[in-house]
């Protein structure tokens, strides 16, 4: 008989921490004027609703860190929230241009923008350094590029290990990002902040781990049992999360795999809206300042749009995590069955 075959399980620490907050509370508590704010989601699962709430709460002087500075970045700029933008791509996906970002950079209109340009992997490595609390992270980019000329965050280090020819290679490194707060979106989490995400997972886990505080917006807060039935699906463990915000549809106009599809019409419309200051201002008034929260925003969007963005079912299979077959329990089961 093996030892475990007869032992009773020890009790695990109870999951008593409830980190759920409303979006309003989460932004109010964790995002402050002057903060460095990372908002991630690579085309998929962009927590747009959090950006809108930051605008509604009129945060100022933020540094926005975002690999793909797209519509939500343009909106936060239009809301006057952003003084510095750290990014590796400024564009409205493949659907056009971002009016406000371009005016700020090209014409300092209405004011200059401190724009810090990186490449995608440069940003990824900055998050990797941040998550691991490293002073730098090496990468095979930038030799011959003009980027290090305009960017102090790309410097060279010499490897202390000789290569096959006995030479000591030089390589570029980037510094860590450690945002004051990271905001990401996922499909579901439990109340203590174990986050499960599928589809494109991007840089979200690293953004959360790199940050001093982390807000995770989810489509659904689920029972502990849902999470525990599939622990490998947990992309971010509770110990890294400060707030869980249940906000279905928070990603509009981006998508949430298995919950809602991308609103391509909106992406295409954005170039026209943001390219015209009057139109943009009216849009901000109507859709952000004019709505109290994301529930009102979605109601305004309307059921026909929401149903256009609905998705059908393509279920994953189920895997077996296994249980220990214990003779003692089997005996008990037999007793129970015979009753």
């Amino acid at each position: 008989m093996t030892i475990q075959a007869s032992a009773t399980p020890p009790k695990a620490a109870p999951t008593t921490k409830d980190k759920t907050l409303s979006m309003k509370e989460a932004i109010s508590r964790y995002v402050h004027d002057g903060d460095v704010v990372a908002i991630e989601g690579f085309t998929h699962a962009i927590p747009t609703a959090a950006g809108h709430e930051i605008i509604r709460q009129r945060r100022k002087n933020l540094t926005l860190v975002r690999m793909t500075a797209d519509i939500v970045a343009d909106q936060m700029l239009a809301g006057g929230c952003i003084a510095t933008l750290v990014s590796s791509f400024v564009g409205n996906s493949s659907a056009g241009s971002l009016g406000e970002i371009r005016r700020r950079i090209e014409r300092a209109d209405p004011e200059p923008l401190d724009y810090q340009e990186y490449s995608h992997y440069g940003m990824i490595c900055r998050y990797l350094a941040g998550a691991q609390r490293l002073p730098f992270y090496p990468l095979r980019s930038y030799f011959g590029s003009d980027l290090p000329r305009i960017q102090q965050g790309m410097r060279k280090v010499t490897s202390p290990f000789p290569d096959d020819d006995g030479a000591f290679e030089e390589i570029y490194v980037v510094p860590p990002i450690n945002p004051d707060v990271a905001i990401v979106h996922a499909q579901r989490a439990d109340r203590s902040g174990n986050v499960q995400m599928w589809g494109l997972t991007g840089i979200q886990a690293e953004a959360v781990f790199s940050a001093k505080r982390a807000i995770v917006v989810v489509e659904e807060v689920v029972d502990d049992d849902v999470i525990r039935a599939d622990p490998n699906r947990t992309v971010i463990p509770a110990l890294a999360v400060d707030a869980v915000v249940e906000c279905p549809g928070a990603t509009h106009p981006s998508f949430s795999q298995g919950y809602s599809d991308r609103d391509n019409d909106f992406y295409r419309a954005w170039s026209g809206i943001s390219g015209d200051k009057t139109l943009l201002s009216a849009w901000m008034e109507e859709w952000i300042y004019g709505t109290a929260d994301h529930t009102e925003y979605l109601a305004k969007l309307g059921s026909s749009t929401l149903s256009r963005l609905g998705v059908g079912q393509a279920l994953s299979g189920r895997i077996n995590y296994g249980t220990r077959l214990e003779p003692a329990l089997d005996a008990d089961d037999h007793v129970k069955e015979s009753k």
Partner: protein
Amino acid sequence: MTSVAEGVGVTATELLTVVASRELAGRHTVFAGIGLPTLAVSLASMTTEPNLEIVYESGVCGAHPSHLPETIADSVLITGAEAVLSMPVLFGYVLQGGHIDVGFLGAAQIDRWGNLNSSVIGPWENPKVRLPGSGGAVEVAANSKEVFVVMRRHDARTFVESLDFCTSPGPDRALAEGGRVRGAGVTKVVTELGILTRSGVHDELKLSAVHEGVSVDHVLANTGWDLKVAEDLRVTPAPTAEELRLLRTEIDPRRVYLR
């Protein structure tokens, strides 16, 4: 394969797609965005290279989409895919790890060494036009075994003697700064006028083919540097009927990207 009447009804996009697809023969792993490169990979996988695998910058490997995807992150690329990778795995392990044979890139400006600008027109500090920037282009240029560039517009403002800003350098610029070089850099540039090729380090882009009806002089006049012409300059073979049939009826029948 039979040849169709030269150029009749063949759009520039169809031509560029067919030309790019032929260049993929013998390659296995392609890092590409949505649009023309995706069409070219699809066509190549039906003709010259059945084992071709496309890796999307969003992290999708082995996509089997139910609908034509609109972006590199389209939800239909994920459902039914073989693998979805996080950004550190995609960029660190797959791309920088050396698993990509061909990276597809676009750019606002290209020079004779295959250096690319996708950041700004004008000075970086005070740009006339702010472009999207690198995205992953710096990394694709540095780590792919070779790079294919598709440039719809071929004129002296895009094919320049000197870039306004070098976002994504080729190996020669990297070497000049003391960097290690892993791949050949840009080896093919497919444009509305013809095909430019480059063999690798220390070689410059040469005109190796002109499309049917395009004169060499026209290409030279629309290139911002003194473009060399290959000794064995060809006329681009026209798309075959089968290539056009596949493109038009199997790959993009609604002409989403062929428009």
